């Protein structure tokens, strides 16, 4: 067995990993540049939303308690707008370590690591961020067809935070992955395990604090056009109001 670096560990701190920090500390591959652009756009969009919401709510406030309906609408609008930030606040996981098992590889390991990192970020956005926004993320692009077909409700409850809590703010204390790739006899990497550690803390729309710790393994396979989750062994600890 030969073990070698799949990718040099990134120096990003394990704590306070925000989207902006990840982008700053990493030499961004193409995919991440795209992601960063999307994230930036989302952040800007969210900020615009806030502004617009403020603007929208201002006249209502200014208008005073003209009607009960107006007051209700304002509260609802404010809540929805704030929730739009949750997904992006989780950020992109940092690669804490990486290596391979098997014969010496010939695959572009940097590329594989980037693709897996990208898909973990997608998983977190769809399964966790979107769920904390009160919606249901579509996991079709994240899971292999086989994994999606056999996903049980219990497994989904571990994989996602759907129907748990609606957040108004979230921050990721830790968001890191340790990658181990398997190199086949031809030197190519066909299976990658990502050991995930994701600690989130946040507040609900009502201001109550909560924490969600998720740790364990996501196993990715080369699914043709992308690396997707084929199996997982995750644990989740939620401290909810």
């Amino acid at each position, binding site marked *: *067995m030969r073990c070698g670096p799949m990718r040099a560990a990134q120096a990003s701190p394990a704590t306070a990993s925000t989207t902006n920090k990840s982008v700053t500390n990493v030499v961004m591959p193409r995919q991440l540049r795209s992601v960063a652009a999307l994230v930036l756009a989302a952040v800007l969009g969210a900020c615009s939303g806030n502004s617009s919401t403020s603007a929208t709510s201002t006249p209502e406030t200014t208008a005073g308690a003209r009607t009960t309906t107006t007051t209700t609408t304002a509260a609802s609008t404010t809540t929805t707008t704030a929730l739009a930030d949750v997904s992006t606040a989780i950020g992109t996981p940092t690669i804490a370590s990486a290596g391979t*098992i*098997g*014969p010496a590889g010939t695959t572009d390991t940097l590329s594989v690591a980037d693709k897996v990192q990208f898909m973990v970020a997608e998983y977190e956005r769809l399964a966790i961020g979107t769920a904390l926004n009160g919606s249901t993320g579509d996991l079709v692009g994240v899971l292999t*067809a*086989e*994994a999606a*077909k*056999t996903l049980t409700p219990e497994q989904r409850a571990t994989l996602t935070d759907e129907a748990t809590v609606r957040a108004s703010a979230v921050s990721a204390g830790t968001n890191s992955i340790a990658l*181990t790739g*398997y190199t*086949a*006899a031809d030197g190519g990497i*066909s*299976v990658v*395990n990502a*050991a995930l550690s994701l600690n989130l803390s946040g507040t609900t729309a009502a201001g109550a604090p909560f924490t969600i710790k998720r740790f364990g*393994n996501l*196993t990715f*396979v*080369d699914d043709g056009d992308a690396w997707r989750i*084929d*199996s997982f*062994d995750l644990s989740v600890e939620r401290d909810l109001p």
Partner: protein
Amino acid sequence: MRRLLGALVIFVVVIGAAAVQWLDAGATVLKIVKTSSADHHWTPDKPLFVLLLGHDIRPGAGCGCTDSIHIVGIPAGGGQATFLNIPRDTRVNIPGVGNHRINEAWGRAKENKEQFAAQVIGGFVGVTIDYTIVIGFNDFPKLINEIGGVTVDVPESMSDPNSGAFFNKGLVAMNGDQALAFSRDRHLGGGDFTRSANQTRLILAVLAKLRGAGTAPLEQLKYLAVLARHSILNGIGTRDLYRLGRLALSIDPASVRSMTMPGTGAVIGGGAFVVPTADAPGVFADFADDAILQTH
């Protein structure tokens, strides 16, 4: 007469074999072949059927017979399995050859031996064999030794100089040669039927050992590395191999049902055979639909 072989660890191995030190051994001991048609792709939401064959070829001996024949059915979702053990002397029609013992199917093929055997044996039972795994007589003990031996619950005492099986009833720690002897002994009540059931007992003991060594994702990757290094793969990529291994490790040996084909001895045309009894077709049909024996 030594034929026989034990069998298969195989699957298990398939699954995941073994001790890390085996990584350095370098020997190729298994052949894993996709034997279903090109347009037939197994997915985890369907039952999987794997044919395990152990052949008797070794330097200066062996007829090319697969004296260990098991079809492992794993239902959709995994976690359990059914072993259908096929007596080696079972009389079947081998295309291009005629009615012969089923253990000759693999050796009679001039090419694509695994596909041919899968078609004959799968066709006999009525299942599509997704994958076939073959291990040789001399390789079986190596495999057992490489995983550090195995503990087998011997169902009845054995004292057979032909196979070298001398064991007391109960839990017995075996090395590779002892495991081979255990899997070969047919001088028992029930003869080859009992031997075939004992081979499954041995395979499950290996599975239990591997599961005891760990089933976490990283361990599965190590198993995959071990397996791929020591296997000849034909028609199967490492992604599917990983899935097979993970599926195999999901099987709780306590949830495995082992059944030997209902059959009886018969002398036909001067040859001694095993022929299926009247209830065999019902067993086959029960097994083929979802890999679970609900009514047998």
